């Protein structure tokens, strides 16, 4: 609920004095006439919250990665004999696209800090297209693989890990699209008010980092 900033600063100053010397603090108790509760507004904690949440989300992938590495280290041969070889070229190109998109969306973050909402829209559109190309490439790869979900343990882990990540890319695209659409509304994001853009960008970096680990683990290692 609302508060008048004057009261807020007043109260903070008050508590500080009081901490130093309780006796002084109570010489100026607030007037009983002040009936509506005053609220100290707290700083924007959404970025902090998002980072904590993404850390947790990262642990989900860490769990799956460790499971994959364990399956792999326990197996007598990996991938199990008879598994068709994975094509590396397409995913490598895909990796380059996704990693570059992280730099692209970062430009949006820089642009909004200069209050350039027009540039934000273009950078977001570019990121969206790059992410969509990545997903399309992933679907293309799925269609041309010679093994299915239940072929063997390697195939299952491959599909579940990439699928799980792909789902995160999809969620990222939805976030980028909705923030992008909201940016069309004048004044939705300003120099000092751009959490949505920042959040989309942080999430997208997260999805990227996960993919790099995944790519190295599944295709290169």
């Amino acid at each position, binding site marked *: *609920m609302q508060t008048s900033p004057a009261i807020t600063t007043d*109260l*903070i100053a*008050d*508590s*500080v004095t*009081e*901490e130093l010397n*309780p*006796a002084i*603090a*109570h010489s100026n*108790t*607030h007037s*009983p006439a*002040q*009936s*509506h*509760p*005053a*609220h*100290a507004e*707290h*700083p924007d*904690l*959404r970025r*902090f*919250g998002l980072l*904590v*949440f993404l*850390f*947790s*989300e*990262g*642990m*989900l*992938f*860490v*769990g*799956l990665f*460790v*499971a994959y590495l*364990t*399956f792999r280290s*326990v*197996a007598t041969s990996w991938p*199990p004999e008879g598994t068709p070889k994975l094509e590396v070229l397409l995913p490598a190109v895909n990796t380059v696209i996704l990693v570059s998109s992280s730099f692209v969306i970062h430009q949006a973050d820089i642009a909004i800090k200069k209050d350039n909402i027009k540039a934000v829209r273009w950078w977001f559109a570019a990121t969206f297209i790059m992410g969509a190309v990545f997903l399309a490439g992933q679907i293309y790869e799925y269609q041309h693989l010679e093994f299915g*979900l*239940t072929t*063997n*343990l390697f195939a*299952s*882990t491959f599909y*579940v890990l990439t699928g*799980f990540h792909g789902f995160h890319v999809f969620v990222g695209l939805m976030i980028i699209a909705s923030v992008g659409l909201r940016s069309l509304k004048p004044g939705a994001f300003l120099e000092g008010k751009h959490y949505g853009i920042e959040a989309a960008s942080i999430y997208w970096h997260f999805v990227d980092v996960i993919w790099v680990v995944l790519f190295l683990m599944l295709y290169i290692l």
Partner: protein
Amino acid sequence: MTQTQIQPISAASNQNPSEHPERHWRDYFTFCVDHKVIGIQYLVTTFFFYLVGGVLASIVRGELATPDQDLLPPGVYNQMFTMHGTIMIFLWIVPAVTGGFGNYLIPLMIGARDMAFPKLNAIAFWLIIPGALMLMGSFFVGSSESGWTAYPPLSLITEFKVGQALWIFSIIVLGTSSILAAVNFVVTIWAMRMPGMGLFQMPLFCWSMLATSCLVIVATPVLAGAMTLLAFDLLAGTSFFNPTGGGNPVVYQHLFWFYSHPAVYVMILPVFGMISEILPVHSRKPIFGYKAIAYSSMFICVLGLVVWAHHMFTSGTPDWLRVFFMIATLLIAVPTGIKVFSWVATIWGGKLRLNSAMLFALGFVSMFVVGGLSGVTLASVPIDIHVHDTYYVVAHFHYVLFGGSVFGIYAGFYHWYPKIVGRMLNEFWGKVHFVLTFVGFNLCFFPMHILGLQGMPRRVAQYDPQFATINQICSFGAFILAISTFPFLFNAVWCWFKGEKAIANPWHALTLEWTTASPPIVENWENEPELLTDPYDYGMGHTYDQQGHVILANAS
């Protein structure tokens, strides 16, 4: 010596109640974002599931009253103990101590108006409902019968695939709720403390909730990963954990216990915090070793993440790994012991008030020590191999989860009920409740140590007749325990409407939640709360006015 009269902060709220938005009873059934409403929603909802889980436990003990399998078909018996365990953990203790007491108390204790993300808070609570509906719904299609651990391949070869799948999805939903709540707690405790309250001026409950939330954030997603893979195995025919398809069931056990061992600390750490609040108030002494208790919470949080494989000493775990996990597990007894010693030193020589809250708190300390000691014996590899999957283990974890967590929750109920409801509980019935619970609990679970050492396996409906007498004692205790909930329930419901009105600070406690009215007004305080003392400055000559507000004794 001079005394400074402190203006009671909530005095104005009594003068002009009409100027404040009042809580309507409908708010408690809607998507309300007030942390106090959400806390009550959690507590009432989870207590309902406690009763459901208790009915299941009574049925299980009914079956075990005789050596023959006569009350239930074996499959149904398996469903009963599976659902009992799952409900008690995921729908009672975890949400009650974190979501319930955490939500209600944390903002009040740190002088905040609400949690950092009130909407997220409400979402976390309302996720409990679909999770619970799925779990309860699975009763009607044949629920999971693979125990609360759902080890594959047992969980994969079930005849009730739908029930097992519902169980998995329910755990994922409840886990998500738990993670969202934990994110909220970490941010709130870290960044929303009132000006002047440093980390070491926080009440110890805040420290324990911080440690708990860190554990949830690190460990719960791993469980969600395990559950996802298990769901694929069950429904899509993959074989991550199915040995017949080349999978590895032990990987599931590692992932599962990486969450489920820390989950034990998720269930007990907030209770440690509550006990650290209750003991000093009713002993009228400062807490002994504030920093030791605060640090030991964080130490348990870190160490609790690297002990999980002690549940798997018999799962073909290599010797060197068993030794590592044995030592790590034994080490956990150190921070826990520090806490117990601090509590004992706190009550030592204090002016004890033996009211219901204090009785349950003292009951907690003594019962938890029994559970802790049996835990130390179980940590030792040779003993664990001998008693693995016997009633010794059942005795151990009921001593920590019931003798520990549930006793602590009851202590918390009695201690904070006047604040939450604004009325006092009846002390006589509170004591009746305590005596019945204490006697029933020990009758029910202590003999199980002996059963386990004699070799009675857990999770069986039918057992060797030589165990019959001890089992009858256990079942008798279980029924006393079941009956013990009635005085509590009637007391809580009756006093909600008819109890004696509570003043702001009936226990003369010094933490911030007692500086506002009982129940607290919407937005918690009339004006910004004031930090007059450290949270445990008892026995320093402070006096209290009619509403229980502290009047500082200034040594001059």
